[in-house]
């Protein structure tokens, strides 16, 4: 997809004016955080598990090469193939190559954010391979030709009636008078549409929530079971995963699973948790003949050893989106690319460049809620601040901001001058705001007074009044 991150402010303004989106986002922000709290309350060791999960990924990131090579060895031993891809283009070519070798006409897909990151659907379509999304949310947005607006709930920006309209438009061969009033109707219709496509697909493409070095397995977590039909029915299974998804052992994977769904949806476990290891073996009842893992770097190894390394602990649970007041205000599409929310604001500048994405690290109040709920304890605000440092150093910050901060600092380090100058300013503000106690407008302060009054200063500065001997 073409990123629209560079016009974040305009995207945000449009989103704020969209009343249907407002309803959807309000529901999200009410639902997920409360469910997460309930799930935590049911598990007394939840905070300890967060520490353990963090430590597992920290250990992995210090030994990434070791575990990736071990993983590759295990996959190969079991008859699978690992394709190492430096960037999105290499990953797309690898996937298309496998599809061509399999003479594939259709590819069923379970939800994969890496698939979104490399824009695999557009690429396959352009090369005469038809991708079919099978996660309900992804299926809906594929029909609507929209990007996902949330990493675990891709169609969260839509209300039910919009989905019904889309189905009526797109499923023309069905009875026009059918009822689509209930969520169940929509679910049944999507299921009916997808059933034969699962059976007919030549290739199944899935993501992976984790890769396990010890066994060469992937872990897939869904609530719909669509991933299982995607990898078990076709002749060829392709896994697309970024390389930081690796964990050392099955035991480690289960530790992370215990924080994943609780943080994401407030479920103790997702409905389906599947472990999938290589192609069909003699005696297996089902499974693919061929098994490929496309391992994507796409700039991630460049983050190792930098102030952004800890971002590679992210398990894509979406909790930081669910708890972010800015995400709740503008929704996922405003971020203009595949990811969104706090994790998106940290990842996107690294993936598409700071030139396009400078608004994202800035559009945060540093309220810290994301870090406080992140199951992997990723210091997201600290990383947003690191991006701001780079933005400032590259002189991408606005001239007004740069000059203003320089002036403020020049004053603030000279207390006597500071108290003289600020005394004049508050004296003037006090004069204009005197009777009402507030100002409705102020030159050069439209950013503030556009939507709020400016309370007038009480008069005099505290330090100066204190020195004059004033006391309460």
């Amino acid at each position, binding site marked *: 997809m073409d990123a629209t991150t560079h016009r974040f402010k305009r995207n*945000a303004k449009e989103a704020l004016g969209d009343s249907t989106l407002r309803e959807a986002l309000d529901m999200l922000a009410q639902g997920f955080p409360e469910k997460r709290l309930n799930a935590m309350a049911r598990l007394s060791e939840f905070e300890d598990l967060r520490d353990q999960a963090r430590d597992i990924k920290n250990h992995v990131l210090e030994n990434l090469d070791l575990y990736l090579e071990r993983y590759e060895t295990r996959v190969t031993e079991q008859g699978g193939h690992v394709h190492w891809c430096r960037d999105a283009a290499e990953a797309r070519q690898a996937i298309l190559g496998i599809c061509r070798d399999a003479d594939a006409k259709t590819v069923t897909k379970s939800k994969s954010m890496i698939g979104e990151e490399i824009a695999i659907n557009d690429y396959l379509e352009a090369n005469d391979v038809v991708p079919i999304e099978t996660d309900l949310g992804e299926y809906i947005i594929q029909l609507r030709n929209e990007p996902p607006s949330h990493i675990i709930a891709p169609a969260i920006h839509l209300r039910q009636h919009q989905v019904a309209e889309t189905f009526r438009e797109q499923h023309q061969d069905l009875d026009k008078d059918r009822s689509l009033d209930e969520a169940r109707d929509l679910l049944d219709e999507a299921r009916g549409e997808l059933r034969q496509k699962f059976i007919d697909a030549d290739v199944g493409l899935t993501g992976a929530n984790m890769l396990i070095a010890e066994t060469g397995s992937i872990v897939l977590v869904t609530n719909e079971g669509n991933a299982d039909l995607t990898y078990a029915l076709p002749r060829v299974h392709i896994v697309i995963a970024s390389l930081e998804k690796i964990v050392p052992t099955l035991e480690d994977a289960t530790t992370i699973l215990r924080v994943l769904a609780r943080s994401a949806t407030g479920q103790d476990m997702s409905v389906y948790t599947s472990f999938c290891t290589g192609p069909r073996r003699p005696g297996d009842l089902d499974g693919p003949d061929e098994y490929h893992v496309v391992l994507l770097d796409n700039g991630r190894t460049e983050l190792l050893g930098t102030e952004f390394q800890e971002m590679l602990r992210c398990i894509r649970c979406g909790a930081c989106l669910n708890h972010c007041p800015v995400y709740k205000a503008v929704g996922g599409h405003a971020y203009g690319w595949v990811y969104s929310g706090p994790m998106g604001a940290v990842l996107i500048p690294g993936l598409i460049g700071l030139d396009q994405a400078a608004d994202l690290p800035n559009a945060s*109040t540093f309220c810290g809620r994301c870090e406080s709920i992140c199951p992997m304890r990723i210091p997201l605000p600290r990383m947003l601040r690191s991006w701001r440092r780079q933005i400032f150093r590259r002189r991408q910050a606005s001239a007004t901001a740069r000059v203003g901060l320089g002036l403020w600092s020049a004053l603030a380090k000279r207390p006597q001058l500071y108290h003289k100058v600020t005394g004049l300013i508050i004296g003037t503000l006090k004069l204009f705001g005197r009777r009402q106690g507030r100002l409705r407008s102020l030159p050069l302060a439209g950013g503030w007074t556009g939507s709020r009054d400016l309370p007038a200063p009480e008069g005099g500065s505290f330090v100066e009044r204190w020195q004059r001997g004033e006391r309460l």
Partner: protein
Amino acid sequence: MSEKPENEGPKVGLFATCLVDLMRPSVGFAAVRLLEAAGCQVFVPAAQTCCGQPAYNSGDDADAKPVARLVIETFENFDYVVVPSGSCAGMIKCHYPDLFADEPETAARAQALANKTYELVSFLADIMNFEGLQSSYSGTATYHDSCSGLRELGVKEQPRALLCKVSGLTLNEGREAETCCGFGGLFCVKYPDISEHMVDEKVDDIVATGADIVLAGDIGCLLNIAGRLKRRGIPVKARHVVEILAGAGDGPAIGDGTD
């Protein structure tokens, strides 16, 4: 240190913060009354200005450092540094050591300062075991948790415990008391549309509590909330929590005139 206080309690440097100093001096006076009642010797160094957070949060470390250095020099000789703001206390406590990470000597001084710096209300409750002033306020209040105070410093129960001792005051909790008000320093002027949405949700939540006054521990949040309340014509008042705790809630509330 021009004052010569009489008691033998800990020497506390009061860092009023630029917003209290310039916009709301009565918070400074209320802070002094509370600290003295809790047994502290209070000093107000004249060399204080700002903590440097506007530059630091803008990624402008070069402009933040000299300001932070001045704070370190001005306050490092007190037993404690107390700040009537979770945001500015958090800046000193959590971020000064990072800011000077590449200057080991200053970083050590920054860390020493961080170790003895506290947000005012949590200092009163946690360090001084302050029991309150037997003040009174007749009305219903709701408390807004400012983000830095809550998440960086763990300020949550302390202001509520002290407010419970104010006679005549009923405290109604907002459902979204812990949600950001949308101030965020320069955020509110850089992203006014998003900020307006956030402060509107905050104001709606305050109104839903039925409170006639909103209290908080940070003037930044309060200017934002009061400014939006006024613009929408909602007659809920806004004050810094220490004004009520010190029994100094008689003058005009934030954004109210003298008429």
